[in-house]
């Protein structure tokens, strides 16, 4: 097995395959890595209900096997969870998780050699509180009655416990302010080729639809992970058909195009930018959550943004935000975590991306996509 190869595979454990997002391959691959001591720990989501799950770091194979399934309303992020812990670990990772992990790697907070990143294709995630409201307002169903969820032909379908399927197009939902988180709409990392192995359901065809996972090996580590799971008898794989490979590439292109369109729609050029930023930030309560959660920030308690800032200052825009705008210019990966946690609902990701889009374009640098050094690291101060 080697980089660039693609397979279609599934878990050999029937219940894992059934519960899995597509074929339960990811879960089984993670469990096999743990069993065969490729890693000491695995990160998975511990499901509480359809709209809630907690990320855990575990060495318990059963806990890993229990985690099979995709939770679209759990916009978690794993990079900071494993940072500074010096773990030999394997974990599932959406595009933004992968990017955060790589950026932490560049900042020496994660040892990438010891980190097996299982990428998940990602069309976007939803905020659980928004999803609950959407179910009640748009679908007219009680969140507690939801049994499962799928995306098919541009529609978001919720299956209720009575077996009924309720479908509404994602376009309609997003027009009404529901659906995916804003940052996911313009995210263009749909297949995480920056991970060790990218897994998803795009490209699975025929009878295997819904019963298999499509994988693409992106690194030697990815090959080891897959081979280990095959050898351990946890998964079964076969070569994908050409139709599937082509279909996957096509969907990727369409999704990236859609992301680009959203980007243009949201980031319309504006005058008086300073006033816009000042206004958006005026309700900030200095909680610091946006820094704590940011997967590309690896400063501890002592960092420039907090050290230069005092609550006693009366600046129109705090030094905290000014320093962060500057620092995230080359680092922001647009994961949306900061907007999610801001207690006064400041659309922070939008603000950071306003800075980061032109800077990253100008510097031809996409953080978290490879090991290229962040341009700001290269800046040499004149004597």
């Amino acid at each position, binding site marked *: 097995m080697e980089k660039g190869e693609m397979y279609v595979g599934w878990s050999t454990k029937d219940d894992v395959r059934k519960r899995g997002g597509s074929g339960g391959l990811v879960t089984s691959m993670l469990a096999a890595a743990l069993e065969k001591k490729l890693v000491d720990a695995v990160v998975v989501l511990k499901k509480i209900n359809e709209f809630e799950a*907690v990320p855990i770091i575990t060495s318990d194979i059963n806990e890993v096997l229990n985690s099979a399934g995709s939770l679209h309303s759990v916009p978690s992020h794993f990079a900071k969870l494993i940072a500074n812990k010096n773990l030999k670990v394997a974990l599932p990772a959406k595009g933004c998780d992968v990017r955060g992990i790589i950026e932490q790697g560049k900042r020496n907070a994660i040892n990438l050699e010891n980190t097996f990143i299982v990428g998940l294709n990602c069309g976007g995630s939803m*905020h659980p*509180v928004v999803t609950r409201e959407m179910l009640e307002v748009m679908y007219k169903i009680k969140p507690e009655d939801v049994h499962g969820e799928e995306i098919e032909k541009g529609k978001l379908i919720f299956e209720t416990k009575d077996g009924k399927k309720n479908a509404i197009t994602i376009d309609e939902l997003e027009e009404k302010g529901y659906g995916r988180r804003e940052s996911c709409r313009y995210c263009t990392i749909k297949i995480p080729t920056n991970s060790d192995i990218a897994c998803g359901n795009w490209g699975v065809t025929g009878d295997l639809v819904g019963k298999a996972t499509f994988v693409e090996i992106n690194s030697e580590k990815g090959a080891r992970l897959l081979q280990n799971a095959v050898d351990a008898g946890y998964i079964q794989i076969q070569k994908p058909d050409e139709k599937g490979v082509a279909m996957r590439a096509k969907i990727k292109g369409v999704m990236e195009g859609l992301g680009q369109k959203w980007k243009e729609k949201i980031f319309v050029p504006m005058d008086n930018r300073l006033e816009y930023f000042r206004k958006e930030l005026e*309700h900030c309560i200095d909680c*610091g959550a946006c820094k*704590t959660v940011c997967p590309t920030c690896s400063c501890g308690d002592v960092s420039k943004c907090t050290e230069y800032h005092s609550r006693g200052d009366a600046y129109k825009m705090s030094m905290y935000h000014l320093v962060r705008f500057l620092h995230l210019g080359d680092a922001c990966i647009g994961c949306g975590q900061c907007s999610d*946690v801001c*207690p006064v609902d400041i659309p922070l990701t939008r603000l950071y991306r306003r800075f980061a889009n032109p800077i990253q374009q100008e510097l031809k640098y996409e953080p978290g996509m490879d090991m290229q050094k962040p341009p700001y690291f290269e800046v040499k101060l004149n004597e």
Partner: protein
Amino acid sequence: MSDNIYSTICPGCNFGCGLYIRENGSLDVDFRKSSPANAGKLCRFGMSLPKFFNPAKSMIDGVETTMEEAAKEAAKRISASKGSVAFLSLGNTSNEELLAFQKIAESYLCTGVNFEALPKDTYQTISIGIPYNEIEAAKHIVLFIDPYEQYPLIVRRLLLAKTKGAKITAVWWKDLMLADENIRPDDISKLALTQDSIIISDFHPLSDTEQVKNVLSLAKNAGAKVTFLKPFANSTGEYIISKDTKQKSLAQLIDDINKGTIKTLFALESDIAALIPSDTLSKLTNLIIQAGQASSTKANIVIAHDPLYKKKGTVINNEGRVQTLGGAGTNGLEALGIIAGSKFDFNTLHESIKKTIGITAVDEFTIPKYDRPAYGAIQAAPKPVEKKPALIDVYNPFMWFDLADDNDFVELNLNTVRALKLLKGGTLKIKSNGSALEKKFKVAPVQDNVLLTGKSMGIEKGIITPVEISR
């Protein structure tokens, strides 16, 4: 390897913010985005919880011991000073513990607030607030609080209300960023209320009863709705559970300790540093504190039980939403059982709580239907505000829990700065009751001659303290 993760409720106030606490060598706060009250968002205090949950150690007269021994010794001293024992709980623990505590405390219970001074038909209105989504849908919102400093998670609800067309009026000493109209407390006569107005005020141990009555009567006369935010994780539960119990006010408790009729004080999960002057506390023969985290107050006996996030049990937030604390710990009840002389059974207490609230199962997504009886006409006699310089304490979670924050300054306006010829980056002298302080200041749109502080300065006499100020 597996993390210890607790899905719990923030102890910082009664808003009911859900979060995860992750125990893995150190303590970490994690965002519980599915939490209905806060969508996972936390304020400055919530983000500081690892500092707050500084573990307590059981002690008898300064010597470390086990929880059981500390509780036994407490039981001994409590029964030895029968007739002069007071029991204080501000509502910072589970309903189940509070119910057990109340059984012990029948003789002298203090919940910190002065319900006795208010008409009984207002208890329900004061105890249980209006659901946040109703606030979001309001046409007119009147604030008698500083939401940013005191109850930060209400800010986003207010901003959402504004995007839906609400007008916000603030009756406060400082212009509030989100208000469309700012009225100073002295100019309250300018406040125009209608049936479409929702008043947001707060109710806590230092609330001025006449001011609370005034807010109630303003609402009554206009037919407006009123909601009181509260500072402790389970203030609402505490008030519901104790509504038919005879209680002593905090002022009475302080008075009784000063007079010497109360010699032993047993405080359950209540930080008394912010409430009882240290010279009063020093008059006690026995101060017994049962808590889940260390406190700055020196006690004769400390009974260290599980921190809130490890406890089994329920709390009720300001909306009346019943929430689970998330842990499995019941050693708080065990300690209370030792003091009572008979064991408490969690399930019995829990069932009793459910019956009182009128629910069959705990579900954080439903707000039980509480009766909201209309209260009768109220006579209020709020004190006129003196036109002298005053230091006003803006009580926030850091203050209630005596936790350090980056707020060692006072806010004042430019007129005051000019009148006193204060220098940029310099300090201001504040004098009161023979004490003098020098403080940094921040210029803000505050009322003339008013200093606002979010940190206790140690010279205060209640919320508003007349002071002399100079350069």
